[in-house]
């Protein structure tokens, strides 16, 4: 375009092309905003749905009584609450040390090649469908024997390990190098500096990762359905030989039933589980923000 063709006296307003670009831009921005609003709205709708339907099922009896013997209304889900706590506690006792040790191996000991292999293994494990892990534990512990609480715990532990290892590893990498160097300069042996200096500095992040993993495990249904689902109305003492009642499988079973009182109990149990999981998530996030600030300052 030569200078002679430009009308320098024309008012500075958007030409058709610029107007079109602005409209496209506005459109794109609105689509992005609407998508974000929609995601938050879906969360709100699901949580509100569970709260509004579950709230009238919740009572002291619901939280502390056994379920009704032959179906029907009334009764509570106390054994399922205790059972889930038990299964998840044992799973945590298995997964937390394993996950933290794997993380220490990755950050403190492993060479590049071993590190790559283990990190890949963790990612693969993390990406496995949970029902596959359930069938694995079935083949390992249940086939030819009985369902047991232990089998449920092991399946949940396998799901938790990569989560805890990943979170711990991230936090261990954040521990400033000069802390390690200071310990070295004082002649502290390596294992003492790891146990006494590095781990305590990363403790906040490790606990956060564990809490998030617990929240995830508490709601996992597929593996528990395969290895720990045929249970009575009581928590048995026989953790190694009998299935233990638990909340996720209870919700699943009740949701497959076709009667209104079962649905009410399912909503109540869902509310209990969702409350625990959301609170654990919020708490873990707050803790993580705090410990990150402290460690990187």
């Amino acid at each position, binding site marked *: 375009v030569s200078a002679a063709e430009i009308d320098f006296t024309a008012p500075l307003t958007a030409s058709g092309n610029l107007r079109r670009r*602005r409209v*496209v*831009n506005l459109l*794109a*921005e609105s*689509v*992005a905003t*609407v*998508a*974000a609003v929609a*995601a938050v709205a879906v*969360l709100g709708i*699901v949580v509100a749905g*569970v709260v509004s339907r579950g709230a009238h099922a919740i009572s002291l009896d619901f939280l502390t009584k056994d379920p009704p013997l032959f179906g029907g209304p009334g009764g509570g889900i106390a054994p399922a609450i205790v059972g889930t706590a038990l299964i998840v506690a044992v799973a945590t006792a298995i997964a937390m040390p*394993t*996950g933290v*040790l*794997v993380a220490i*191996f*990755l950050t*403190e*000991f492993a060479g590049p090649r*071993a590190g790559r292999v*283990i990190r890949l*293994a963790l*990612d693969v*494990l993390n*990406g*496995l*469908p949970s*029902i*596959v892990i359930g*069938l*694995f534990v*079935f*083949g*390992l512990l249940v086939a030819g024997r009985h369902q047991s609480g232990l089998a449920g715990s092991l399946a949940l532990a396998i799901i938790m*390990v990569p989560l805890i*290892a990943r979170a711990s590893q991230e936090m261990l990498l954040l521990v400033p190098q000069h802390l390690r160097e200071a310990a070295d300069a004082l002649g502290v042996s390596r*294992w*003492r500096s790891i*146990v006494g200096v590095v781990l305590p500095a990363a403790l906040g992040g490790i606990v956060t990762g564990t809490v998030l993993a617990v929240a*995830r495990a508490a*709601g*996992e*249904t*597929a593996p528990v*359905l*395969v290895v720990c689902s*045929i249970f009575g109305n009581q928590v048995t003492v026989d953790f190694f030989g009998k299935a233990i009642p638990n909340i*996720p499988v209870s*919700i*699943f079973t009740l*949701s*497959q039933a076709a009667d209104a009182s079962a*649905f009410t109990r*399912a909503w109540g149990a*869902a509310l209990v589980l*969702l409350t625990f999981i959301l609170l654990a998530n919020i708490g873990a*996030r707050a803790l993580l923000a705090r410990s990150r600030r402290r460690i990187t300052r």
Partner: protein
Amino acid sequence: MVPGARLVVRPRPRAGRGVRRVDRVGEALLFGLCVLAALAVTAVIVDIAYQLVHGAQPAIAKYGLGFLSDSAWKPNFHIFGAAPVLYGTAVTSAMALLMATPIGIAIGLYLSMLAPRAVRGVVGPLVEMLAAIPSVILGLWGILVLAPFVRAHLEPWLHAHLGALAIFGDPQTSGSSVFTAGLILTVMVVPIIASVSRDLFLTVPQELQDGAAALGATRWEVVRGIVLPSTASGVAAAAFLGLGRALGEAIAVTQVIGAGSAVHANLFATGDTLASRIASQFQGAIGKLHIAALFYLALILLVFGVFTNLLAQWIGHRFDTRTAVAR
């Protein structure tokens, strides 16, 4: 020095033999435990593959790879084939991915480029919270709240307006359909793609974006010209992660898909996926062959899961090296 005092050079206890032994033991112990834990992780993966092959052995021996194309699944007659569930898995996952990828990327863009700082701090965690809802609760909501709504409003509307397409056929069920399962999976996959792509978009160098803006590009043109091209492979990796999640989801899908065993083009009919077939039939399995067939399904699921995961890793790794070179 005080007269008479004798300087005694006592041999100092050498930096403690005992202490050093403690150190040696401690060092070896910690290292040993770490290696053991790392080995356990890899051993579990290998053992998973072994257990699934072992469990599926009777079905593998009887059907071989023909299992993948057989379409009959009649436990009472000991006839098993995986074609319908493979089809159901493909349809539900494709539907979830087609809807969740654009939505997830849009949310990622909103969180990384549009949202004010305060809003970002609230909306980001809320989107991730969506991923924290257990699938069994999402499924309960799906079957009792979403499915009736879909049946009453969404399916008739789509059928009336887009009924010419075979996928939007006559609504056939009470709401438990492949379509509803796809919607639930979308809800599960969106937060994964959204949070990964947000983190990716935040890594795009600000000076590149500023440069484009200085040349007069609108925000959308910055996104289209700079942000998306430089993160494309990372976004693809995020989509694969989401696909892995959609392929393997068992519980929520079982609750809403209606456990059909036929292949329909119509999304508004019932169906079943690999994972949901296992979840719904494993407890009541009749006979060894039935269990073996379900193990076979899990083996296919394992292969898919590992494959999508490795693909995501590989693509993501390419992204890492490329941006490292660019800087």
